[in-house]
């Protein structure tokens, strides 16, 4: 089990970042392929080949560039760059809190892109996207807080090598994080602002006016983000890398399963339930941890 961490420690921070930047889209793309295959099987279809997401994105990059606002794609570029930056920071082993804030910055650029085009569907999608961010943000911050309470450090490099299983200290935080992970992965019942499925009542939501390469970039960003989020799941089980890897993949499959089994919630329910779930699971966990000290 020490081989993974051995390799990790051998690499310098820039090398870790580079590995993330190169590998994450491959992993993210294949996960997306698994997602589509599994969803299809659950719906009784055959489904596309695993490498279909890559073909889709490549095709998007060959499409015509159609825009409403000539700056709209700039915000997507920023969304892309800052998501990569957050992920690179995370896998380099930097401060978890910094990763959380920088990811929020990336999300804000995405939302601003959605607002900037001035289309009603996109506006509504952007509005819902902010609402989703507000819904999950407390839990993401509490995740960092809980990790710090359990280990005394915010550094991912130290968190990941904890000998004791963090999941035992942070079960509430983990449950809360699973809950908001559905929002982050853009899965039903929380895929309000945009959805990969056809059943979208606000056209394509926040991405309505994005097409071609910009849409491709959004897709790739999403892959990077998914890998980053699964990395956070990994932290809970860092005591054993194999267990951690298996659980991370299992969590992803679990979210796909949830996706298939739920109809979309209204935004009111999404927002209120996320905050309440965060409050109950996350806060109780944090209070217990502070009493244990």
């Amino acid at each position, binding site marked *: 089990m020490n081989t993974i961490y051995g390799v990790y420690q051998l690499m310098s921070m820039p090398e870790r970042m580079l590995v993330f930047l190169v590998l994450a889209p491959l992993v993210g793309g294949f996960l997306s392929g698994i997602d589509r295959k599994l969803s299809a099987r659950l719906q009784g279809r055959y489904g596309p080949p695993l490498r279909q997401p890559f073909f889709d994105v490549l095709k998007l990059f060959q499409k015509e*560039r*159609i*825009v409403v606002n000539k700056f709209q794609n700039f915000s997507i570029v920023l969304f892309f760059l800052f998501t990569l930056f957050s992920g690179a920071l995370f896998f380099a082993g930097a*401060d978890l809190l910094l990763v959380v804030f*920088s990811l929020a910055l990336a999300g804000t650029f995405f939302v601003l892109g959605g607002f900037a085009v001035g289309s009603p569907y996109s506006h509504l999608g952007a*509005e819902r996207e902010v609402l989703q961010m507000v819904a999950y*943000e407390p839990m993401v911050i509490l995740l960092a807080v809980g990790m710090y309470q359990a280990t005394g450090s915010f550094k991912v490099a130290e968190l990941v090598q904890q000998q004791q299983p963090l999941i035992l200290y942070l079960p509430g935080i983990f449950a809360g994080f699973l809950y908001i992970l559905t929002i982050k992965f853009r899965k039903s019942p929380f895929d309000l602002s945009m959805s990969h499925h056809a059943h979208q009542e606000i056209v394509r939501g926040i991405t309505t006016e994005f097409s071609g390469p910009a849409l491709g970039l959004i897709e790739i960003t999403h892959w990077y983000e998914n890998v980053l989020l699964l990395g956070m799941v990994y932290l809970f089980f860092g005591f054993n890398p194999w267990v951690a890897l298996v659980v991370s993949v299992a969590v992803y499959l679990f979210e796909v399963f949830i996706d298939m089994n739920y109809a979309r919630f209204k935004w009111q329910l999404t927002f209120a339930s996320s*905050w309440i779930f965060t409050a109950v699971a996350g806060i109780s966990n944090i209070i217990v941890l502070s009493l244990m000290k």
Partner: protein
Amino acid sequence: MNLLIFLIVFPLCIAGLALVLPLGNALRRTIGVITAMVLSAVPIYLLVTYLDQGPVYFPIESHLVSSFMLGIEVLIAAFIVYISIKAKQYLTVLLVVVQSLIMIVFELTSGGSMEIENSLFIDKFSIIMALIVGIIGSAICLYAIGYLPEYHQHHKEVKDRRRYFSFLIYLFLSAMFGIIFSNNLIWLFFFWEITTICSALLIGYRNDKPSIESQFRALKMNLLGGLGFVIGIVYLYNTSHVMELDKLIRLDQSYALIPAVCIAFAGLVKSAQMPFSSWLTGAMVAPTPVSALLHSSTMVKAGVYVILRVAPALENTVAAKMLMLIGGVSFLITAFMAISQSNAKKVLAYSTISNLGLIVACAAINTPAAIWSALLLIIFHAVAKSLLFLCVGIIEYKLDSRDIEDMDYLIMRLPKLTAVMMIGMAGMFLAPFGMIISKFVTLKAFIDTNPGMAIILAYGSAATLFFWTKWMGKIISVRHGETEVVEHRVSRWEWFTLDILAACTVLVCLAFPLIASGLINPYITEVFGNVPPPEGFNMMVTFAMMVGLLILLPLGIFFFGYVNKNYKRVGTYLGGANLSEVTFEGAMASTQTIRLKNYYLKKYFGEDRLFNVGVLVSLTLLCVMFGVAFI
């Protein structure tokens, strides 16, 4: 020492001049510009001079000055009684009479025998405050030169009392300098009361019913705070014969606790924390420069300033915990309420109270890290918030509305102003800039002392993100086709101030490693002896992000605006055949018009419900704070 006295007396002289010189006079404007230059230059000079020194105290023969101040106080009290009786505000009369009586009796009985060693002092915190008051305060005065003529054009019913207005503003600045340099508590109280009366009179500038109401609300609340202040210093002198700020902090806690709580109470009122937040939200009836001044560099900052000063006397007490919770509750509740507001000035007001709540909470925690982030919050908030208020002031007249819902396509109608406003907003909440660094450190300070506060911060930050992002989105949305640009006739005074403040916002962000290492860290070392664990790597990363963004943004805007031609521009998808930019042909050949509105979530964050909750909770906490201090 002469410089400190100069900074207090100079604006006073200018105030006198402003009252005398006729309006529209070129000399008047020249003096305004010179004053702004002097008031910005002197604090910078102070910074350079006192940078390498610890706190410096200046002995002054204070008896004469104190008697003089007492005389002025009596005059002011008489004036307040006069205007209050005229407006039938008897509670105000009662408050001012009680307060003045205590003060007069106190000075007559103990004033003669009082030994005061050092009446004035300067340390790094005072310098930071002086820079804020000097640069931002005087920039706002310049803005007022361009703004007020237009204000009177739009409000013909308001009597033109511009001379009186400038007089009050300069007097206000003078009193602010007084507050930040006074070590003598009697002097501090004197300047404190001057800011109270000045702010109230400025709020009532319009002289119509709502303004008068807001004026007296502000006056009543702040006089109540002042009463707390008086009781605090009288108690302090009678128990321990101390009348100086530095000695108060070094005093044994059994003596210092009650005065510190009383002074902190006055600070809570002045910084508009819950339950006293309504005076600040009511203050938006005043002309924009007043709001900008109250919210950024003066009034509310004076409140948190004294709280930060007396906080060491509260260390490790239940009272400090209560103070922290009051700050936390104010932070959370007002951030929530800001979501439900569409009035731009009200959103800004709630965001101010929210940020001050965070500062108060940091002060109450009083660990090196907490104080570190409190100081950064003060700096960043002052710059960005004044900028935003001044922008909204201009928008209000160009669009004839201060409602965020009317700010559609603002970037097409007022492009440059929108750009400036984006800078301000980014400074208020966006990740690498300003506030977020301080929030970052605040969160760490909270976790170490009280995880409950970390939870409050987690929810409050999410709410903050919400109301800023949706506002930002509103102003940058674009529609196809031509829109009338209404940016003409923004006076060069206003532009000048906006440019300066926008540049300041960017500069403090860029210079923040310097500010931290040059001013804040040494101050922390002076107070605590040890510097907080350096966040070296994180500071580097945030700084890299900031520089990256500052390079990327102009480059990207240039590229997408001028270089990139490889695109086809189309109208938006509206769900039917587009007839124009905002209409389309819907079912049954009907013409449908689109309108974009934001979410306000009144059901969850409505002011009517949350405000009462906040007042009740904070009032309870306040009672407990006093209760535990007096037991």
